[in-house]
């Protein structure tokens, strides 16, 4: 293990998405956003639908995480997520289409599953944010 690095591992039921040593990790926990630098105190939390960012040198990588569990140690961050996508793999058009569909559902039908539709909208919004944060760099 290189000095001053954290090993970031993102595991989903579809396989290992990411496993690399990075300098810094930022994620959205259920109680708020948190950042991890090497030597962080051991820490366990769940993640909300949101952005996960990591920095390696001057290069930043962004992920969209759909629910997750995070276990942080001094030199390791393990994320177990339902699904995770790299920002470059996100299909923005599809996300926007999904958002529109969910909004239509909320507007018109009476017996819609609100929680589900809202979760769909949230996912779409976060996906687009992930893409934007990459473009912002």
């Amino acid at each position, binding site marked *: 293990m290189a000095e001053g690095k954290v090993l970031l591992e993102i*595991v*989903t*039921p*579809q*396989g*290992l998405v990411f496993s690399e040593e990075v300098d810094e990790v930022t994620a959205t*926990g*259920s*109680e708020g956003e948190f950042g991890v630098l090497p030597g962080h*105190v*051991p*820490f*366990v*939390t*769940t993640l909300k639908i949101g952005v996960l960012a990591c920095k390696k040198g001057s290069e930043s990588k962004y992920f969209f995480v759909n629910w997750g*569990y995070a*276990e942080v*140690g001094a030199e390791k961050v*393990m994320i*177990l997520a*339902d*699904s995770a996508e790299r920002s470059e793999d996100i299909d923005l058009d599809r996300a926007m289409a999904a958002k529109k569909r969910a909004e239509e559902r909320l507007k018109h039908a009476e017996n819609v599953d609100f929680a589900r539709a809202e979760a769909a909208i949230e996912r779409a919004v976060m996906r687009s944010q992930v893409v934007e944060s990459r473009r912002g760099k």
Partner: protein
Amino acid sequence: MATLRDIKRRIKAVESTSKITKAMKMVSAAKFRKAQQRMLEMRPYAERMNGILSSLASGAEGETHPLLMVRPRRNIEVLVMTSDRGLCGAFNTNIMKTATRHIDELRREGYEVTIDVVGRKARDYYKRRGIEMRKAWTGIAGKISYANAQEMAAEIIENYTNETTDEVVLIFNEFKSAIAQQVVISRLLPLAPIQAVEETLPIYNFIYEPSKQEIFSRLVPKNVEIQIFRALLESQASEEAARMAAMENATRAANDMIGSLTLQFNKARQASITKELMDIVGGVEAMKG
């Protein structure tokens, strides 16, 4: 006696059948490899999740979660997993036979049984017999995603927590190897007690946010999702393996048939040649006379 032309036509027909079964075998082989790959890919996730749950379960939290609590059984939900498509040997028959036997047994013992199915084959089976199903998930085979498993888990968990059902049982084909699948009946809910392990690194005092209990109760439903997802993938891999074997057998049977038909064809051709020769010889003899 079949004429030469009849036999030839039959050979052609069997040949094209064997071409189809051979192609189907190749397709299943490719799909089978993919399904197996996906089973391997979800393994690290499942292993880590189990590890985490075990370490979180230390302490009293382990017994109090509603999904872990055993309560008196009255209504049992049975989830039967079959394929959407046929031509896979005894794959679906085995499942349905076991499921029917199991359900009958439960009913005889006086339990209420609710049936859920995955796959068109099981749905059609019960529909034909006029047996009521609560829910049928079809059309997901071949493109199983974790979201499918989540959707199914959400419904099952809801029924379980509002005490519509007191126990949930999965019946599916477990994947043993490419040539062996086995029908298993496994209990999904209540979940098997999670073995608590003492944290291996006692120096670490983890900070839990929001709380250990809260995190544990959020993770337990994941365990249900994983089990359903695993069962779906196993069933998928088994289906393709069973189809591969069935198509292999069909191809072999077709080739055997082509062999025996060719023999019959040659015999018939020889017989007709002989007959013609006899006629000619007979004719020549007659002219001599």
